[in-house]
Protein backbone atom coordinates (compact mmCIF):
# COMPACT_ATOMS: atom_id res chain seq x y z
CA UNK A 1 0.00 0.00 0.00
CA UNK A 2 1.46 3.30 -1.03
CA UNK A 3 1.20 6.31 1.24
CA UNK A 4 -0.89 8.89 -0.52
CA UNK A 5 -3.75 11.31 -0.08
CA UNK A 6 -7.21 9.77 -0.47
CA UNK A 7 -10.39 11.84 -0.76
CA UNK A 8 -12.89 10.89 1.94
CA UNK A 9 -15.68 13.39 1.34
CA UNK A 10 -16.74 16.80 0.11
CA UNK A 11 -16.54 19.89 2.32
CA UNK A 12 -20.25 20.69 2.09
CA UNK A 13 -21.09 17.33 3.67
CA UNK A 14 -19.18 18.15 6.88
CA UNK A 15 -20.52 21.39 8.38
CA UNK A 16 -19.06 22.99 11.49
CA UNK A 17 -19.87 21.03 14.64
CA UNK A 18 -20.33 17.69 12.85
CA UNK A 19 -18.54 14.32 12.70
CA UNK A 20 -18.63 11.65 10.00
CA UNK A 21 -17.08 8.27 9.26
CA UNK A 22 -14.17 8.35 6.81
CA UNK A 23 -11.69 5.87 5.43
CA UNK A 24 -8.05 5.79 4.41
CA UNK A 25 -7.49 2.51 2.56
CA UNK A 26 -8.63 -0.14 5.08
CA UNK A 27 -8.37 2.19 8.09
CA UNK A 28 -11.68 3.50 9.43
CA UNK A 29 -11.52 7.07 10.67
CA UNK A 30 -13.67 9.66 12.42
CA UNK A 31 -13.47 12.98 10.58
CA UNK A 32 -14.87 16.01 12.35
CA UNK A 33 -15.04 19.77 12.29
CA UNK A 34 -15.16 21.91 15.43
CA UNK A 35 -17.60 24.76 16.04
CA UNK A 36 -15.02 27.22 14.68
CA UNK A 37 -14.31 25.01 11.64
CA UNK A 38 -11.10 23.25 12.67
CA UNK A 39 -10.71 19.84 10.97
CA UNK A 40 -9.36 16.66 12.59
CA UNK A 41 -9.26 12.96 11.64
CA UNK A 42 -8.51 10.06 13.97
CA UNK A 43 -8.74 6.30 13.97
CA UNK A 44 -12.43 5.55 14.52
CA UNK A 45 -11.86 4.03 17.94
CA UNK A 46 -12.16 5.60 21.38
CA UNK A 47 -9.01 4.79 23.41
CA UNK A 48 -11.27 3.96 26.36
CA UNK A 49 -13.61 1.19 25.18
CA UNK A 50 -13.15 1.10 21.41
CA UNK A 51 -16.48 2.72 20.50
CA UNK A 52 -16.54 4.40 17.09
CA UNK A 53 -15.75 8.07 17.63
CA UNK A 54 -17.72 8.86 14.45
CA UNK A 55 -20.83 8.03 16.52
CA UNK A 56 -19.86 10.80 18.93
CA UNK A 57 -20.77 14.47 19.02
CA UNK A 58 -19.02 17.82 18.74
CA UNK A 59 -19.37 20.42 21.44
CA UNK A 60 -17.35 23.59 20.79
CA UNK A 61 -13.75 22.62 20.04
CA UNK A 62 -14.05 19.05 21.34
CA UNK A 63 -15.38 15.67 20.22
CA UNK A 64 -17.10 13.48 22.84
CA UNK A 65 -17.43 9.71 22.65
CA UNK A 66 -21.10 8.62 22.66
CA UNK A 67 -20.37 5.72 25.06
CA UNK A 68 -18.93 7.25 28.27
CA UNK A 69 -18.54 10.84 27.18
CA UNK A 70 -14.75 11.04 27.16
CA UNK A 71 -13.86 14.44 25.66
CA UNK A 72 -11.04 14.93 23.14
CA UNK A 73 -9.54 18.17 21.82
CA UNK A 74 -8.65 18.81 18.18
CA UNK A 75 -5.07 17.61 18.93
CA UNK A 76 -6.51 14.17 19.84
CA UNK A 77 -5.63 14.44 23.55
CA UNK A 78 -8.26 13.45 26.13
CA UNK A 79 -9.34 16.61 27.96
CA UNK A 80 -11.98 15.32 30.32
CA UNK A 81 -13.44 12.10 31.72
CA UNK A 82 -16.97 12.70 33.09
CA UNK A 83 -16.80 9.80 35.56
CA UNK A 84 -13.63 11.33 37.10
CA UNK A 85 -14.32 15.05 36.90
CA UNK A 86 -11.38 16.06 39.12
CA UNK A 87 -8.83 14.05 37.13
CA UNK A 88 -6.56 15.69 34.57
CA UNK A 89 -6.33 12.90 31.98
CA UNK A 90 -2.76 11.69 31.37
CA UNK A 91 -1.24 12.68 28.01
CA UNK A 92 -1.00 8.99 27.07
CA UNK A 93 -4.81 8.93 26.52
CA UNK A 94 -4.83 10.16 22.96
CA UNK A 95 -6.78 9.37 19.80
CA UNK A 96 -4.53 8.21 16.95
CA UNK A 97 -4.35 11.05 14.46
CA UNK A 98 -4.33 11.23 10.67
CA UNK A 99 -3.62 14.20 8.43
CA UNK A 100 -6.80 15.82 7.13
CA UNK A 101 -6.76 18.82 4.83
CA UNK A 102 -9.35 20.55 2.73
CA UNK A 103 -8.69 21.85 -0.79
CA UNK A 104 -11.07 22.79 -3.61
CA UNK A 105 -14.05 21.66 -1.53
CA UNK A 106 -12.59 18.17 -1.01
CA UNK A 107 -11.57 16.52 2.29
CA UNK A 108 -8.30 14.59 1.92
CA UNK A 109 -6.81 12.06 4.34
CA UNK A 110 -3.30 10.62 4.71
CA UNK A 111 -1.10 9.24 7.48
CA UNK A 112 0.65 11.96 9.48
CA UNK A 113 3.89 13.20 7.94
CA UNK A 114 3.04 13.39 4.22
CA UNK A 115 5.63 15.60 2.53
CA UNK A 116 3.59 16.75 -0.45
CA UNK A 117 0.25 18.54 -0.62
CA UNK A 118 -2.94 16.82 -1.87
CA UNK A 119 -3.62 16.94 -5.62
CA UNK A 120 -4.65 20.35 -6.93
CA UNK A 121 -7.94 20.45 -8.83
CA UNK A 122 -8.26 23.74 -10.65
CA UNK A 123 -11.43 25.08 -12.28
CA UNK A 124 -13.59 22.32 -10.80
CA UNK A 125 -16.43 22.45 -8.32
CA UNK A 126 -17.74 19.68 -6.07
CA UNK A 127 -21.01 17.97 -7.05
CA UNK A 128 -21.74 15.01 -4.80
CA UNK A 129 -20.49 11.79 -3.26
CA UNK A 130 -21.82 8.56 -4.79
CA UNK A 131 -21.19 4.92 -3.82
CA UNK A 132 -21.20 2.02 -6.29
CA UNK A 133 -21.16 -1.75 -5.81
CA UNK A 134 -18.98 -2.42 -8.88
CA UNK A 135 -15.24 -2.00 -9.48
CA UNK A 136 -13.41 0.75 -11.30
CA UNK A 137 -12.65 -1.31 -14.42
CA UNK A 138 -16.39 -1.75 -15.03
CA UNK A 139 -16.97 2.00 -14.81
CA UNK A 140 -14.17 2.73 -17.26
CA UNK A 141 -15.57 0.05 -19.58
CA UNK A 142 -19.00 1.69 -19.56
CA UNK A 143 -17.65 5.22 -20.13
CA UNK A 144 -14.49 5.05 -22.30
CA UNK A 145 -14.10 8.86 -22.23
CA UNK A 146 -13.00 8.54 -18.59
CA UNK A 147 -9.51 7.45 -17.55
CA UNK A 148 -7.21 7.28 -14.51
CA UNK A 149 -6.76 5.29 -11.34
CA UNK A 150 -7.04 7.42 -8.16
CA UNK A 151 -8.37 10.44 -10.02
CA UNK A 152 -10.64 9.67 -12.96
CA UNK A 153 -11.01 12.44 -15.49
CA UNK A 154 -12.54 13.00 -18.87
CA UNK A 155 -14.81 15.10 -21.02
CA UNK A 156 -18.27 13.60 -21.41
CA UNK A 157 -21.50 14.58 -23.14
CA UNK A 158 -24.09 15.83 -20.61
CA UNK A 159 -27.26 17.62 -21.62
CA UNK A 160 -25.96 18.34 -25.13
CA UNK A 161 -22.66 19.83 -23.95
CA UNK A 162 -19.14 18.51 -23.40
CA UNK A 163 -18.42 18.74 -19.70
CA UNK A 164 -15.23 18.11 -17.76
CA UNK A 165 -15.78 15.45 -15.08
CA UNK A 166 -13.42 14.50 -12.24
CA UNK A 167 -14.11 11.50 -9.99
CA UNK A 168 -11.97 11.05 -6.87
CA UNK A 169 -11.86 7.34 -6.08
CA UNK A 170 -12.24 6.03 -2.54
CA UNK A 171 -12.01 2.23 -2.41
CA UNK A 172 -14.57 0.57 -0.11
CA UNK A 173 -14.95 -3.02 1.13
CA UNK A 174 -17.85 -3.78 -1.26
CA UNK A 175 -17.18 -1.40 -4.12
CA UNK A 176 -16.02 2.17 -4.52
CA UNK A 177 -17.10 5.65 -3.62
CA UNK A 178 -16.71 8.58 -6.00
CA UNK A 179 -16.37 12.17 -4.88
CA UNK A 180 -17.46 13.90 -8.08
CA UNK A 181 -16.48 17.33 -9.36
CA UNK A 182 -17.31 19.08 -12.61
CA UNK A 183 -16.40 22.19 -14.54
CA UNK A 184 -17.65 25.39 -12.92
CA UNK A 185 -20.14 26.21 -15.69
CA UNK A 186 -21.79 22.76 -15.77
CA UNK A 187 -25.34 22.23 -14.46
CA UNK A 188 -24.86 20.24 -11.24
CA UNK A 189 -28.35 18.70 -11.44
CA UNK A 190 -27.58 17.30 -14.90
CA UNK A 191 -24.18 16.07 -13.75
CA UNK A 192 -25.73 14.40 -10.68
CA UNK A 193 -28.28 12.57 -12.86
CA UNK A 194 -25.56 11.59 -15.34
CA UNK A 195 -23.60 10.05 -12.46
CA UNK A 196 -26.64 8.01 -11.44
CA UNK A 197 -27.06 6.78 -15.02
CA UNK A 198 -23.38 5.79 -15.11
CA UNK A 199 -23.79 3.87 -11.84
CA UNK A 200 -26.91 2.09 -13.12
CA UNK A 201 -25.22 1.06 -16.37
CA UNK A 202 -22.08 -0.19 -14.63
CA UNK A 203 -23.92 -2.15 -11.94
CA UNK A 204 -26.28 -3.73 -14.46
CA UNK A 205 -23.29 -4.82 -16.54
CA UNK A 206 -21.93 -6.64 -13.48
CA UNK A 207 -25.32 -8.26 -12.80
CA UNK A 208 -25.72 -9.43 -16.43
Amino acid at each position, binding site marked *: MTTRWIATGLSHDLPNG*AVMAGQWQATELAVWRSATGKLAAWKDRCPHRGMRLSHG*FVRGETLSCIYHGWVYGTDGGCKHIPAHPALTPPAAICAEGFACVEANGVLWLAPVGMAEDPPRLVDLRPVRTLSLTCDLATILGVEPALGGSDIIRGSVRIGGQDEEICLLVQPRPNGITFHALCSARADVVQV*SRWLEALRRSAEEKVAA
Partner: protein
Amino acid sequence: MIRLHDYVLSASCYKVRLMAALLGVRLDLEAVDFHPGRAHKSLAFRQLNPAGTLPVMVVDDLVLTESTAMLVYLARLAGPEWLGPGTPQASAQVQQWLAFSGRLAASLGLARLHDMLLYTGDIEALRRDGHLALRELESALTECRFAGHDWLVGTAPTIADIACFPNVALSQDGGVTLDPYPAIRLWSRRVRSLDRFVEMPGIHRLHELRPAPAEA
Protein backbone atom coordinates in the same frame (compact mmCIF):
# COMPACT_ATOMS: atom_id res chain seq x y z
CA MET B 1 -58.44 12.43 23.79
CA ILE B 2 -56.20 10.72 21.25
CA ARG B 3 -55.36 7.14 22.15
CA LEU B 4 -52.40 5.44 20.47
CA HIS B 5 -51.96 1.68 20.69
CA ASP B 6 -48.21 1.69 20.75
CA TYR B 7 -45.03 -0.38 20.87
CA VAL B 8 -41.86 1.43 21.94
CA LEU B 9 -39.52 -0.31 19.45
CA SER B 10 -41.82 0.12 16.42
CA ALA B 11 -40.63 2.61 13.79
CA SER B 12 -44.22 3.27 12.69
CA CYS B 13 -45.38 3.98 16.24
CA TYR B 14 -42.41 6.30 16.78
CA LYS B 15 -43.36 8.17 13.60
CA VAL B 16 -46.66 9.13 15.27
CA ARG B 17 -45.14 9.85 18.71
CA LEU B 18 -42.53 12.10 17.05
CA MET B 19 -45.11 14.03 15.02
CA ALA B 20 -47.30 14.52 18.10
CA ALA B 21 -44.31 15.74 20.14
CA LEU B 22 -43.24 18.21 17.44
CA LEU B 23 -46.80 19.56 17.31
CA GLY B 24 -47.19 19.64 21.09
CA VAL B 25 -50.15 17.22 20.94
CA ARG B 26 -50.63 14.91 23.91
CA LEU B 27 -51.20 11.21 23.16
CA ASP B 28 -52.68 8.71 25.53
CA LEU B 29 -50.33 5.77 24.98
CA GLU B 30 -51.54 2.18 25.39
CA ALA B 31 -48.56 -0.20 25.34
CA VAL B 32 -49.17 -3.38 23.32
CA ASP B 33 -47.02 -6.47 23.95
CA PHE B 34 -45.85 -6.81 20.34
CA HIS B 35 -42.81 -8.92 21.18
CA PRO B 36 -42.74 -11.58 22.48
CA GLY B 37 -46.45 -11.52 23.39
CA ARG B 38 -47.80 -10.95 19.84
CA ALA B 39 -50.74 -9.18 21.48
CA HIS B 40 -51.36 -7.32 18.20
CA LYS B 41 -52.46 -10.65 16.68
CA SER B 42 -54.91 -11.49 19.47
CA LEU B 43 -58.63 -11.81 18.71
CA ALA B 44 -59.39 -8.84 20.92
CA PHE B 45 -56.88 -6.57 19.16
CA ARG B 46 -58.00 -7.69 15.69
CA GLN B 47 -61.52 -6.67 16.67
CA LEU B 48 -60.05 -3.14 16.70
CA ASN B 49 -57.68 -3.58 13.72
CA PRO B 50 -58.41 -6.67 11.59
CA ALA B 51 -54.98 -6.37 9.97
CA GLY B 52 -53.32 -6.93 13.34
CA THR B 53 -50.75 -4.17 12.86
CA LEU B 54 -49.45 -1.31 15.00
CA PRO B 55 -49.94 1.55 15.60
CA VAL B 56 -53.67 2.09 15.94
CA MET B 57 -55.04 5.55 16.72
CA VAL B 58 -58.49 5.96 18.23
CA VAL B 59 -60.21 9.34 18.54
CA ASP B 60 -63.86 8.93 19.52
CA ASP B 61 -65.39 6.99 16.58
CA LEU B 62 -62.34 7.44 14.34
CA VAL B 63 -60.04 4.40 14.13
CA LEU B 64 -56.85 4.83 12.08
CA THR B 65 -54.53 1.93 11.27
CA GLU B 66 -52.09 3.59 8.85
CA SER B 67 -49.36 5.71 10.44
CA THR B 68 -49.21 8.15 7.51
CA ALA B 69 -52.95 8.86 7.92
CA MET B 70 -52.25 9.58 11.60
CA LEU B 71 -49.65 12.17 10.57
CA VAL B 72 -52.24 13.87 8.37
CA TYR B 73 -54.75 13.86 11.23
CA LEU B 74 -52.29 15.34 13.74
CA ALA B 75 -50.99 17.99 11.33
CA ARG B 76 -54.48 19.06 10.26
CA LEU B 77 -55.47 19.24 13.93
CA ALA B 78 -52.52 21.12 15.38
CA GLY B 79 -50.11 22.37 12.70
CA PRO B 80 -51.42 22.56 9.12
CA GLU B 81 -48.08 24.03 7.95
CA TRP B 82 -46.72 20.48 8.37
CA LEU B 83 -48.93 19.41 5.43
CA GLY B 84 -46.73 21.44 3.07
CA PRO B 85 -47.29 24.56 0.99
CA GLY B 86 -50.59 23.26 -0.43
CA THR B 87 -49.92 23.77 -4.13
CA PRO B 88 -50.99 20.91 -6.41
CA GLN B 89 -47.34 20.02 -6.94
CA ALA B 90 -46.38 20.14 -3.25
CA SER B 91 -49.47 18.22 -2.10
CA ALA B 92 -48.72 15.48 -4.63
CA GLN B 93 -45.07 15.37 -3.56
CA VAL B 94 -46.10 14.94 0.08
CA GLN B 95 -48.35 12.02 -0.92
CA GLN B 96 -45.49 10.55 -2.95
CA TRP B 97 -43.19 10.57 0.10
CA LEU B 98 -45.88 9.15 2.37
CA ALA B 99 -46.22 6.21 -0.04
CA PHE B 100 -42.42 5.98 -0.29
CA SER B 101 -42.24 5.64 3.51
CA GLY B 102 -44.19 2.39 3.04
CA ARG B 103 -41.39 1.10 0.81
CA LEU B 104 -38.89 1.99 3.55
CA ALA B 105 -40.96 -0.03 6.03
CA ALA B 106 -41.18 -2.97 3.60
CA SER B 107 -37.39 -3.07 3.13
CA LEU B 108 -35.36 -1.40 5.91
CA GLY B 109 -38.15 -1.94 8.44
CA LEU B 110 -38.47 -5.69 7.76
CA ALA B 111 -34.66 -6.10 7.72
CA ARG B 112 -34.64 -4.60 11.22
CA LEU B 113 -37.47 -6.86 12.41
CA HIS B 114 -35.54 -9.81 10.96
CA ASP B 115 -32.37 -8.92 12.86
CA MET B 116 -33.97 -7.71 16.10
CA LEU B 117 -37.23 -9.59 16.58
CA LEU B 118 -36.61 -12.86 14.70
CA TYR B 119 -38.89 -12.17 11.73
CA THR B 120 -38.40 -14.50 8.78
CA GLY B 121 -37.59 -13.19 5.33
CA ASP B 122 -34.90 -12.99 2.65
CA ILE B 123 -32.58 -10.68 4.55
CA GLU B 124 -30.22 -10.04 1.63
CA ALA B 125 -33.13 -9.03 -0.62
CA LEU B 126 -34.56 -6.77 2.10
CA ARG B 127 -31.21 -5.03 2.57
CA ARG B 128 -30.74 -4.66 -1.21
CA ASP B 129 -34.22 -3.10 -1.56
CA GLY B 130 -33.40 -0.88 1.42
CA HIS B 131 -30.27 0.42 -0.29
CA LEU B 132 -32.25 1.10 -3.49
CA ALA B 133 -34.75 3.16 -1.50
CA LEU B 134 -31.96 5.01 0.32
CA ARG B 135 -30.34 5.86 -3.01
CA GLU B 136 -33.60 7.43 -4.17
CA LEU B 137 -33.84 9.45 -0.98
CA GLU B 138 -30.17 10.46 -1.21
CA SER B 139 -30.65 11.67 -4.80
CA ALA B 140 -33.76 13.66 -3.89
CA LEU B 141 -32.02 15.30 -0.92
CA THR B 142 -28.98 16.06 -3.09
CA GLU B 143 -31.21 17.88 -5.56
CA CYS B 144 -32.81 19.71 -2.61
CA ARG B 145 -29.30 20.89 -1.68
CA PHE B 146 -28.69 22.13 -5.24
CA ALA B 147 -31.97 24.07 -4.98
CA GLY B 148 -31.02 25.46 -1.56
CA HIS B 149 -33.71 23.52 0.33
CA ASP B 150 -33.25 21.51 3.52
CA TRP B 151 -36.45 19.42 3.42
CA LEU B 152 -38.17 16.94 1.12
CA VAL B 153 -41.04 19.26 0.12
CA GLY B 154 -40.77 23.04 0.08
CA THR B 155 -38.60 25.04 2.43
CA ALA B 156 -39.87 23.77 5.81
CA PRO B 157 -40.24 20.32 7.38
CA THR B 158 -43.47 18.46 6.58
CA ILE B 159 -45.14 15.16 7.39
CA ALA B 160 -43.14 13.79 4.42
CA ASP B 161 -39.88 14.17 6.37
CA ILE B 162 -41.38 12.70 9.54
CA ALA B 163 -42.87 9.74 7.63
CA CYS B 164 -39.51 8.80 6.11
CA PHE B 165 -37.21 9.55 9.04
CA PRO B 166 -37.74 6.60 11.48
CA ASN B 167 -36.95 3.62 9.25
CA VAL B 168 -33.99 5.50 7.74
CA ALA B 169 -32.55 6.46 11.12
CA LEU B 170 -32.98 2.85 12.38
CA SER B 171 -31.59 1.19 9.24
CA GLN B 172 -28.40 0.10 10.97
CA ASP B 173 -30.45 -2.15 13.27
CA GLY B 174 -31.20 -4.16 10.11
CA GLY B 175 -27.59 -4.26 8.95
CA VAL B 176 -27.90 -1.40 6.43
CA THR B 177 -25.22 1.26 6.91
CA LEU B 178 -25.88 4.94 6.21
CA ASP B 179 -22.17 5.66 5.57
CA PRO B 180 -22.62 5.96 1.75
CA TYR B 181 -25.34 8.61 2.10
CA PRO B 182 -24.02 12.04 3.16
CA ALA B 183 -27.18 13.98 2.22
CA ILE B 184 -29.28 11.59 4.33
CA ARG B 185 -26.86 12.00 7.25
CA LEU B 186 -27.26 15.80 7.16
CA TRP B 187 -31.05 15.59 6.76
CA SER B 188 -31.21 13.23 9.74
CA ARG B 189 -29.27 15.82 11.78
CA ARG B 190 -31.77 18.48 10.75
CA VAL B 191 -34.73 16.33 11.83
CA ARG B 192 -33.04 15.65 15.17
CA SER B 193 -32.40 19.39 15.57
CA LEU B 194 -36.11 20.25 15.43
CA ASP B 195 -37.55 21.93 18.48
CA ARG B 196 -39.37 19.38 20.72
CA PHE B 197 -37.74 16.39 18.97
CA VAL B 198 -38.12 13.15 20.99
CA GLU B 199 -35.97 10.02 21.01
CA MET B 200 -36.67 6.31 20.80
CA PRO B 201 -34.34 3.37 21.52
CA GLY B 202 -31.87 3.43 18.59
CA ILE B 203 -32.42 7.10 17.69
CA HIS B 204 -30.67 9.46 20.04
CA ARG B 205 -30.97 13.22 20.23
CA LEU B 206 -28.11 15.55 19.35
CA HIS B 207 -26.36 15.94 22.69
CA GLU B 208 -24.49 19.01 21.43
CA LEU B 209 -27.74 20.99 21.31
CA ARG B 210 -27.82 21.12 25.09
CA PRO B 211 -25.10 22.40 27.41
CA ALA B 212 -22.73 19.88 28.95
CA PRO B 213 -24.10 18.51 32.23
CA ALA B 214 -22.84 20.48 35.22
CA GLU B 215 -20.18 18.73 37.28
CA ALA B 216 -21.14 17.65 40.78
